[in-house]
């Protein structure tokens, strides 16, 4: 289409759009679609942007721990553009497929790992009613999605047609399949306290001061956080559990044969998964998007519900401002846990593969089972914890007192069960 005609039709198009904008329903639909696209892009940006920051942080922290400076040149004094420079370098590299590799699976498996890692971001609520997919069984879903990443890594290692990659993939498979068990059991403890698999409900229940966080709910959940964090570190194959890519033994493990863009997708997935497991830890144990201090919560709590009513919950102007703040709190909290993972990586030596398996099967599984049992029995000991009603507490008290007051409290316990 030649120039003037294109301009003319474009003008007509804009005019027709403006005309149809007079209809308020159309405006609402267009605004809704625009908002949806913007927030989807923001989520994708979180998935792409956070790893860039974490990789810079990893280099910087590693440098400081090893008494070096880390990156200093690219992007000013602190080298904060180093990851971008690395990314540009990696995209320019040749996309190589070895002769012995199964080329289709070899090419596809980085994307499998990346997609699984991004899918976890979709069910992770960053603020109150701000979540890509508000699933009722969000916690179950996110654990299921996290377990898919290993598939991409196994297929990558197997299809490479290399001994080192195969060894790395086999170690990874054995490690992941084992570590999924204590991870699920540890994640079950706060879910049991909340009585819901919905991550938003879990987050909302920890509102208020930091003493309402589930990590301080009972001694078992306190220990469960540390158990979960250990297992989560292992499940994203970070040191000291990074046997799948042990450089000293296996060249580079499962990604030995990968280069360029596909290699960088694996790293994107790894760092995004670090954020995802830390985000789950923050949501389940550390109060989610709440600051835990009373003052900022009351300030931003006052914003909630202010402004024009829109059909989508969480998008009134006041609620939006409060949620932007809450999302920042969430990302900062999760980033602190990621920093902890980086710190651990550059402090502790790598375990041997048999030690990794022993740690999981002989220590972490029994410990998490014990913690789970304790967390189940804890409400029987206390009638109520943190002024939160518990299911068995009132019923137990009424049985002990066995007076005329037993009937209403039993009925209350029943209603708790039914609800």
């Amino acid at each position, binding site marked *: 289409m030649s120039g003037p005609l294109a301009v003319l039709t474009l003008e007509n198009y804009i005019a027709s759009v403006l005309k149809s904008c007079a209809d308020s329903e159309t405006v609402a639909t267009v605004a809704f679609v625009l908002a949806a696209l913007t927030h989807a892009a923001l989520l994708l940006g979180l998935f792409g942007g956070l790893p860039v920051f974490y990789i810079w942080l990893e280099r910087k922290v590693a440098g400081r721990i090893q008494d070096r400076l880390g990156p200093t040149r690219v992007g000013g004094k602190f080298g904060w553009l180093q990851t971008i420079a690395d990314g540009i370098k990696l995209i320019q590299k040749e996309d190589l497929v070895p002769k012995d590799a199964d080329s289709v699976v070899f090419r596809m498996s980085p994307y499998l790992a990346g997609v699984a890692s991004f899918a976890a971001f979709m069910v992770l609520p960053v603020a109150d009613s701000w979540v890509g997919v508000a699933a*009722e069984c969000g916690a*179950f879903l996110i654990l299921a999605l996290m*377990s898919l990443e*290993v*598939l991409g890594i*196994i297929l990558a290692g197997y299809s490479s047609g290399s001994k080192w990659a195969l060894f790395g993939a*086999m170690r990874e498979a054995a490690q992941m399949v084992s570590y999924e068990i204590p991870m699920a059991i540890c994640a079950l403890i706060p879910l049991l306290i909340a009585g819901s698999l919905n991550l938003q409900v879990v987050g909302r229940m920890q509102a208020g001061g930091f003493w309402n966080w589930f990590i301080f709910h009972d001694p078992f959940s306190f220990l469960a956080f540390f158990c979960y964090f250990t297992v989560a570190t292992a499940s994203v194959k970070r040191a000291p559990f990074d046997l799948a890519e042990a450089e000293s033994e296996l060249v580079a493990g499962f990604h030995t044969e990968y280069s360029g863009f596909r290699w960088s997708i694996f790293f994107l997935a790894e760092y995004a998964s670090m954020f995802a497991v830390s985000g789950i830890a923050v949501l389940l144990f550390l109060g989610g998007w709440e600051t835990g201090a009373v003052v900022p919560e009351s300030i931003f709590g006052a914003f909630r519900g202010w402004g024009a009513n829109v*059909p989508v919950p969480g998008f009134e102007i006041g609620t939006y401002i409060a949620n932007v703040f809450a999302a920042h709190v969430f990302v900062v909290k999760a980033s602190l846990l990621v920093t902890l993972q980086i710190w651990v990586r550059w402090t502790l030596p790598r375990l041997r593969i048999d030690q990794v398996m022993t740690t999981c099967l002989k220590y972490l599984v029994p410990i998490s089972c014990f913690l789970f049992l304790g967390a189940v029995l804890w409400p029987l000991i206390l009638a109520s914890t943190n002024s939160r009603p518990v299911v068995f507490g009132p019923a137990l008290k009424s049985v002990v007192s066995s007076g005329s007051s037993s009937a209403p409290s039993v009925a209350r316990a029943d209603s708790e069960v039914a609800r």
Partner: protein
Amino acid sequence: MTEQLLFWVFAILSCGGALAVVVTQNVVRMAFWLVVSLGAVAALFFLLHADFLGAAQLLIYVGGTVVLLVFGVMLTASGHTIKVQTTPAETLLGCGVGLLLLCVLVFGIKSVEWAKEIPGVGDSAAAADQAEDAKLASDVASAKTDESRQAAINARDAAVARRQSGRTLRQLGLSFFGLRPDRNLNQEQGKPLAPGYLLPFEIISIHLLVVLVGAAYLARAKCRATSGLEADL
């Protein structure tokens, strides 16, 4: 319309993936196509707002079974065992069995009158839903004041949410405890109570325990009672 489009995308992916599993001869590629097929089935469950079922499909089949399958292939397959080559007779037999199974499934599904068995399924239910949608939309359009308009919008959203919600999780959990509040509350007297799934659930749990014990027995360190001579060696 978007849901229709997504349905076709995932339906084609799941059927195409399943076909590719049958057609491919390399075991690892079969596993890859199995992932595609099973993942697309999970996506179909999500489209139906059966979130729990979709997540279970992902966790058990894609994350569990396929990972174990690939793991097993890695440990065992090499050289000639990695390729699956079938004789024409085997292909014919497989096709026959597959067609028979397809016939059983299709005729089984056809023979049930879904609209009668389950409320909310079938053409009449869809027509009722459409009528309700139209009525609620006209309510929104015809509302005079802001408040009545807001109330109409809320009613519309509530109706949509009620129809689309996958909030069956609590009912599911309670039914595994043997409680069926969805069936047994507000029933007339004297009607037999609907049973839950406590007994099947427990039987499955015991089965899993047996399997675990068996696996531990099979995988134990096989050290024979050694005599003094062997110990010296």
